[in-house]
């Protein structure tokens, strides 16, 4: 499934919008999600899951090819934690 399929399903199931409008709306939803996460704020979508931004400390890693030690810098990463409802839906 790609964004085009999501747009298609919004177009079909939610009446009143052209395909172009449906596309703009879906785009706006993902833009909002991205901007929110970029700002470091988490997103909680009940029934689906949570997107959480986490700060990782710098740590020492190793180049797996050469075995050489390197410092992995501090970074901010995004994780997704699926909701119980979604997990359940996938396993029933």
């Amino acid at each position, binding site marked *: 499934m790609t964004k085009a399929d999501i747009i298609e399903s919004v177009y079909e199931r939610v009446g009143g919008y052209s395909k172009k409008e449906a596309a703009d709306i879906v785009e706006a*939803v993902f833009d909002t999600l991205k901007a929110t996460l970029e700002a470091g704020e988490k997103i*909680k979508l009940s029934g689906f899951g949570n997107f959480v931004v986490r700060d990782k400390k710098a740590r020492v890693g190793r180049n797996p090819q050469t075995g050489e030690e390197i410092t992995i810098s501090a970074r901010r990463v995004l994780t997704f934690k699926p909701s119980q409802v*979604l997990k359940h839906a996938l396993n029933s």
Partner: protein
Amino acid sequence: MTKSDLIEVVAGKLQIPKGKAEQIVNCIFDSMEESLRRGQRIEIRGFGSFEIRRYKAYEGRNPRTGDPVGVQPKKLPFFKVGKELKERVNAALQHNQSAQRNSGDGLTRPAPSGTSTSPRSKRPRTEASSSSVGSSS
């Protein structure tokens, strides 16, 4: 940001009724769930991809009592963040650090460049929120 915040922001941005925005947001996540349920991966460019990972049965332990428990094979959704979003999320950190860290949690700053995030609050939990998604079947 909760789903109802998201609905409000989208409704405000596009000047559409909140009820419509709610239907649309629900529709998006419902169809994503359906896709995953069919075992089909989802790829949203600039955002990330979701796929189903299958896990074998294993013997786990009750962390409180230490008793062994059998864990059935299961499927879990796995999200892989897309390149663009990964970089944007991390860039915000590098920025904050060089500019000036701290100030509270330092995390809830709005995104730069007019992409307003939520005007949170006001109504932390609207009736619009979440009653329906992902429940049935």
